[in-house]
């Protein structure tokens, strides 16, 4: 039996003033200091007794942390502490990266999305993070600030294991940079929960497709999965299949099978591995069909 605390255990709260101060704190107290943005992961974990930091450093008020900027020549720059709602409602996101808005909107509830941040979602590095598959197929970069300044980490290198990410000692996430997307692309994020909305993903599938004459099928697809492996993953084999031969129902099915094979889920209290695998196939198939239909309509 694992009873949570009836309230939050004690800690000190510090509202960070500068990035350098944060780096300094992280370096000096690597185990006792935790960063805090929306708190929707960390406060729950603290209440559950999983984490007992002595200090929470609130970094969401630092300059740029909640800025959303779109440059038509470069792409989107998303402050790490932008809330799910801010992202999902931002015009530039809705127009240029609807997949990201769709993913953000699947998270929990409206009120939780006012606090939950995209950066927190990624930093928490849960395999079930709903924005992670989107970030993977959008081939975003995570911008970390650390002792030696800024560094860019490609999304596909970011997730190392459940709760583990590629930050070095003393680093924090400040921004997520999303490049301009290929012309004519379309995307979908499909999520399956136990009930019709608001649940954590049993399976999440993001698909981005776009015309690309350099490949045999004339189309490229990027496929990423949540909740079916120790980290969010790209289903590269499926992507290869889709690039390799002309897109037919059969190709879509083969790619979905490949996505299923890429999944290495576990049995847990939420679902069996067997069901999860089958759902990867079903949802991938569905997402691919929908994206393919949109692509065809335009070309």
């Amino acid at each position, binding site marked *: 039996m694992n009873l949570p605390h009836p*309230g*939050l*255990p*004690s*800690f*000190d*709260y510090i*509202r960070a003033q500068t990035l350098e101060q944060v780096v300094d704190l992280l370096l000096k107290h690597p185990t006792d200091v935790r960063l805090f943005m*929306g*708190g*929707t992961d960390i*406060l*729950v974990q603290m*209440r559950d007794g999983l984490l007992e930091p002595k200090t*929470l450093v*609130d970094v969401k008020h630092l300059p740029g942390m909640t800025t959303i900027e779109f440059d038509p020549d470069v792409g989107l720059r998303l402050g790490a502490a932008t809330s799910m*709602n801010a992202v999902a409602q931002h015009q530039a996101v809705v127009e240029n990266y609807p997949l990201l808005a769709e993913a953000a909107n699947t998270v*929990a*509830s*409206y*009120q*939780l999305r*006012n*606090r939950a941040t995209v950066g927190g979602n990624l930093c928490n590095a849960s395999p079930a993070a709903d924005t992670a598959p989107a970030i993977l197929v959008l081939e975003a970069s995570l911008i970390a600030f650390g002792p030696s300044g800024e560094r860019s980490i490609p999304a596909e290198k970011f997730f190392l294991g459940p709760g583990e990410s590629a930050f070095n000692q003393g680093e924090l996430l400040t921004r997520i940079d999303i490049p301009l997307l290929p012309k004519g692309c379309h995307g979908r994020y499909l999520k399956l929960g136990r009930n019709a*909305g*608001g649940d954590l993903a049993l399976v999440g599938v993001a698909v981005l497709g776009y015309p690309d004459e350099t490949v045999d099928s004339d189309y490229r697809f990027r496929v990423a999965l949540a909740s079916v492996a120790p980290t969010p993953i790209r289903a590269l084999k499926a992507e290869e299949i889709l690039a390799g031969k002309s897109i037919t129902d059969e190709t879509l099915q083969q790619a979905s099978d490949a996505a299923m094979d890429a999944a290495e889920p576990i049995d847990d209290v939420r679902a069996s591995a067997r069901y999860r695998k089958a759902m990867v196939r079903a949802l991938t198939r569905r997402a691919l069909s929908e994206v393919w239909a949109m692509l065809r309509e335009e070309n």
Partner: protein
Amino acid sequence: MATHKISFNVNGIRETAEVPSNMTLLTLLRERLAITGTKRGCDTGECGACTVLMNAEPVNSCLVLAVEIDGTDIVTVEGLAQDGQLDPLQEAFIQHTGVQCGFCTPGILIAARALLDRNSKPSRREIKDALRGNLCRCTGYTRIIDAIQEAAEVGG
């Protein structure tokens, strides 16, 4: 553990408090200020009974630290009625039996107020979606959705 001096508005009234770091907004409201309309149903952001407006946006007050509300405006269910006049949502909840045990009601009213403030004519689908973070075990939601739709129609 350090404490923090904060000042904020609750339902239009200026308040100051000295709060420990680990106090949540929910606990501050209920146990320090005795503003108990806002309810505690889970303390983990799942049930929505603790929903309040923070600078006009709904949040789960069980997952907001009290120290974070320094300088903000908080509105709880007690602040919905203005000058003795019920909010149209409150009227509609009474008329449509949107209430049974009433424990979820404060949080749902706040979530609904926020919905109508950002979308004055929501569809049924949009109402359901806006309420998915507010559990109600009694009503089956139907009448709550009816009430919100009605309030929207009368321009609430």
